[in-house]
């Protein structure tokens, strides 16, 4: 409505404005007799997109449309760049041969179904070669990956949330010192302690039984605790005060009030750390020596090592990659609101 009104107003105003402009140009010509024709043409041209110049008034509406279209083009090009490798990945996982893989650009080259192979031949090959070369079962590997990502994340998020609760809502002696103590630990880079971590786990036998991937994560993560703490600052303290007056202890407040109220943040952090653990290549590569207990990324690396330079179809590695990415993509697609919202929240508070 208001836009229409504005347009009407503009139409009404246009004539006088032109008259005034004409007068102004007359005056200008009287002073400086020549109008720069190139400048005027340029002014007419940029006026198409709503820019103002000496000769033409600008239009805010047209300018906005121009920039919106520009932004859409940029964003769509960027989005294409972001998505293309994934599309290529899916296509390539159906490429029937090495040459077919090289021909894959927007569609599988020499796809498996044209070569008298099963449609999912590369996926079948992945399962077979895992049994043959690494002597492990892909389903068992997926199971271990799930264990590595569910157990430490569920326990770790709760321990992180409890620490976050203590930092955000409880006044206790030494809180700031402990906070600084934990913050400083972030400064210690992983690579400088990983050798010692390996030696410690090795001394306890954890590198052989997979506990090195489970136990350390159960103590919680400092970053997760900080993010949940940010969220808890936004919760009204009066709820906790009220619960305290009604006789609830901190233990009950934590389980009965804080966890349910902070569930969005906790879920978001949990899902993010689940994704991190599912994709955790380096941790498993470093701290697990038992081939039976590899997780999916390490298995993919071992399979790829066997294929590179070999005569077989390297698309098998891509098929394995698709298997490792699909669950994460589905999880992300179903929880994207929660995750992005949580990231935005923590981002805007920094």
């Amino acid at each position, binding site marked *: 409505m208001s836009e229409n009104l504005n347009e009407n107003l503009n139409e009404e105003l246009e004539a006088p404005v032109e008259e005034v402009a004409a007068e102004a140009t007359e005056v200008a010509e009287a002073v400086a007799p020549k109008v720069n024709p190139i400048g005027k043409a340029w002014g007419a041209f940029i006026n198409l997109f709503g820019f103002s110049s000496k000769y033409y008034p600008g239009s805010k509406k047209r300018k906005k449309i121009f920039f919106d279209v520009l932004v859409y083009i940029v964003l769509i090009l960027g989005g294409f760049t972001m998505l293309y490798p994934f599309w290529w990945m899916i296509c390539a996982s159906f490429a029937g041969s090495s040459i077919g*893989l090289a021909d894959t650009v927007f569609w599988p080259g020499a796809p498996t179904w044209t070569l008298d192979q099963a449609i999912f031949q590369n996926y079948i090959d992945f399962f077979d070669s895992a049994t043959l070369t690494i002597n492990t079962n892909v389903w068992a590997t997926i199971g271990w990956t799930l264990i590595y990502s569910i157990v430490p994340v569920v326990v770790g998020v709760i321990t992180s949330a409890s620490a976050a609760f203590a930092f955000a809502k409880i*006044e206790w002696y030494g809180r700031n010192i402990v906070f600084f103590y934990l913050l400083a630990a972030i400064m210690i880079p992983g690579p400088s302690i990983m050798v010692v971590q390996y030696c410690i786990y090795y001394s306890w036998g954890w590198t052989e039984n997979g506990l090195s991937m489970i136990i350390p994560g159960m103590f919680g993560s400092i970053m997760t605790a900080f993010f949940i703490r940010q969220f808890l600052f936004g919760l009204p303290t009066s709820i906790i005060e009220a619960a305290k007056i009604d006789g609830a202890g901190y233990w009950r407040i934590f389980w009965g009030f804080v966890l349910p109220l902070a569930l969005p943040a906790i879920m978001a952090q949990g899902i993010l750390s689940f994704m991190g653990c599912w994709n955790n290549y380096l941790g498993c590569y470093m701290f697990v020596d038992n081939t039976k207990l590899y997780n999916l990324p390490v298995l993919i690396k071992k399979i790829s090592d066997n294929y590179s330079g070999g005569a077989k179809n390297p698309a098998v590695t891509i098929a394995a990659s698709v298997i490792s990415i699909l669950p994460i993509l589905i999880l992300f697609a179903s929880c994207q609101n929660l995750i992005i919202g949580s990231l935005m929240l923590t981002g805007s508070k920094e």
Partner: protein
Amino acid sequence: MENKNTNLEEAEALAEMPEVEAVMGDGAAVAPAKKRKKPINQQKLQDNLWGWLFCTPLIVGTTLFVYIAFVIAILLSFSNYQEATPLWNFLGNIEWGSAAIVRVESGEFITDTSLIWYRYIFESTTQSNDFWYTLFNTVFYLIGIPIGMILSVFFAVCMSRDIKGANIFRVIYYIPCVASTVAITYTFQRLFATGGSGVINRLLFGDDSTRYINWLNGAQNTRPWSSGAIIYKWVIIIMSVWKGLGGTIILYVAGLSGVNASHKEAASIDGANAWITFWKIEIPQLWPTIFYNMVTAVIGGMQIYTEPDLLFSTNGGVNFEVTPYVGKIFYLGPMGNNPSPNCAYACALGIILALIIFVLTLFQFLIDSKMDK
């Protein structure tokens, strides 16, 4: 830790007090002031007890797996601990300052054990080459940080315009962040494959095979600044920028939405156009987010390892052209069934890395505080 114990003991001692007072309260007259103080003490005790209890797992985990590990790393870096034998026995039996003969690589022996590994890095020609070349590669990979920062601010500004579907773009751009590094790396290995089998070469140059770029044929092991090696490193930079863009975009979009709207309006009333508003209003208000991202990106970027190792299939070896600093630590460490590890040397390299990162972070904070003035 000691602090915590004493505090808990105090708390226990305090816990018994109310009962005592309650018993006394029957017979003896208790001063009213004391009576009023009682619930406060009780509350404080609860606060302290539960505050510490709730934090205990995180404190224990951090202390055990980070701080103690770091202290042991410092100790080991001065020792001759090479194979991953059970650690506790070794720590019990270290003879500090003894002139134990230590095997180093290629049959060299060092007899003077003071600062042995720290001197070995710089005294041995091969080792100092490894050190400087790998460090050069790591620092070169940091080029991706400013590129990613500019791109993500640009896209964030685009997305924070009032257009339909900005949320969808946010989700699309975040997808690479959640994908597995291993899967992405193997995909890029194929996309950038050498010659006509790589999609990128095909898309850029069609069938003109003379112009195909040799993106990642990095096995010559020449100097890290040779022209070929620079191209290989750019593949890594492209990949890490592509993968990390979405996360920073979301942070910047959040930051931009927090920019005070009245400031922008005031600026436009004063005649500032969008460009000036962006530089004078939005960037200064976004600066804390940008700075935070920069610091974390540099800390993370110095620890890069997975991408070059997988993309160029160096398999834990040291390839001067692409291997980053951490690759050398992996090469020496006991991880991945390394047949001839040198843990003490790897620890020394790790401590140097920690120092470098610390200095870089400090440097950034110094610049930031200078810019504030």
